[in-house]
């Protein structure tokens, strides 16, 4: 079977790359930091594979490395060690309204965002009516985006991305903003997307949702894979750990 996403032995630490000021440049950065003990790794020895047309969930407490993992898949963050293999075009829905410009109209934003996602101009023109229709925002398409609510922006972003030519979608907990009816529509669209052979990687804290949408998944803790397997089972064991033991050491991690 062909794999859409393949990760092997991913390691990542953020210790060594920080913005510096002129002072440290001129006076030297002090003794070199010993990275062996710098902190936990943001990711340590993470590996998994997702076959084409499947849906993969990533769960874990805040700060466990989920977003870092997606960023590495997307290519915006460099892995220190390990290998990432992707079979197809990647698009991401990581942050609400990223790539959108408040002063531009909904229509102009669809064109800009579509282009960011790698669509050709002719393609966006051809699909524009579909995108607008799917988002149900036809009436607001010529209004500036700053007049949109968070839910409307999520609709516009999702509609554009689902009409783009991506083969692999990375989604980071942004679908929860839409109203109930649009969420149903989203799930239907993601289902259709997978039927067409598309692959999903979803990060979420909503255990019910990931259990429904994802076939398999992993649970991260402090950058390590602590559990993997069929998604409903992974989610259930995670929930059990979180409620029985409470959040583990490291107080900033919220229990869900």
């Amino acid at each position, binding site marked *: 079977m062909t794999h859409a996403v393949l990760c092997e032995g991913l390691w990542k630490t953020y210790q060594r790359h920080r913005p510096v000021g002129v002072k440290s440049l001129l006076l030297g950065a002090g003794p070199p930091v010993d990275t062996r003990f710098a902190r936990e790794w943001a990711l340590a020895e993470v590996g998994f594979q997702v076959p084409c047309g499947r849906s993969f969930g990533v769960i874990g407490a805040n700060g466990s490395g989920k977003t870092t993992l997606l960023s590495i898949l997307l290519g*915006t963050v460099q892995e220190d060690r390990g290998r990432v293999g992707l079979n197809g075009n990647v698009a991401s829905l990581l942050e609400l309204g990223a790539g959108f410009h408040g002063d531009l109209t909904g229509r102009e934003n669809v064109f800009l965002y579509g282009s960011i996602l790698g669509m050709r101009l002719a393609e966006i023109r051809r699909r524009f009516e579909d995108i607008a229709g799917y988002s149900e925002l036809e009436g607001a398409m010529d209004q500036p985006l700053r007049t949109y609510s968070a839910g409307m922006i999520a609709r516009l972003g999702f509609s554009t991305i689902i009409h783009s030519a991506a083969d692999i979608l990375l989604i980071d907990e942004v679908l929860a903003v839409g109203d109930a009816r649009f969420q149903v529509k989203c799930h239907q669209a993601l289902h259709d997307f997978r039927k067409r052979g598309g692959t999903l990687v979803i990060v979420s804290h909503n255990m019910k949702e990931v259990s429904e949408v994802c076939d398999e998944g992993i649970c991260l803790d402090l950058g390590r894979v602590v559990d993997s397997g069929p998604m409903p089972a992974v989610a259930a064991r995670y929930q059990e750990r979180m409620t029985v033991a409470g959040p583990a050491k490291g107080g900033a991690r919220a229990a869900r």
Partner: protein
Amino acid sequence: MPRVERSPRQLAEFLYLLTRQELKARYKGRLLGYVWALAHTFALAFVYWIAFKIIMGLEVTNYSVYLVAGMFPWVWLAVGVTSATRSFVVNAPLIKEMGLAHAILPLSNVMQEMAHFVLALPAIIAWVVLPGGYDASLSWLWQIPLMLLVQLAFVYPIALGCALANAYVRDIEYFLGIGFPLLFFATPMVYPISIVPEPLHDYFELNPLHALMQSWRSVFMEGSLDPAHVAYVAGWALALAAVAWLLYRKLAPRVGEVV
């Protein structure tokens, strides 16, 4: 590096959309729109005209044309580089969330300022011909496009290098805020190079910005172009492009982690 596959054609379309939408966004909700950009540069030229011609009594033939012909390309250079320097930081969501081709972002800023300059050409030419009394020249038809290309090739590597550096060291944008006014007066912009005293004169000639600005002025005022000046700027552009390319290879992969 971003893992979204893009053809050169798709990148060109993206550059076009980004530049056009940014320009649109900038002038939305402003009644006078583009007139503000013209007014700003003409007002600057007017201030220097008062200060140096009227008050200091500087003797330069057609001083107002000399100022205007240099000021517009300078604004393209200075504002283009300054805004491009912030482009990675300002567009952090695009870089982090979208895996965007980095080099396009500062290029878009430089293109926006170039678009301003091109849109200002009728006003510059009107100023040169009407109050200036110079004849419109047919040779502008090739000289102006050539100079546009030369300046774009000169400015873009600087913009890209500054933007990359600024992603890691945020001081660059403040440094430029001081650097460009200093450079402005170190380049013969409000005075002719002929009045620079002898020991300094040769050093002033080495300044590529002087060759660039002098080329624009001689195009507008005489319809002529000194090949030596153009070649000198083009040589600098090539050297800067090599430096920018090395910087890009070294710094771009981690930009997503530092902005």
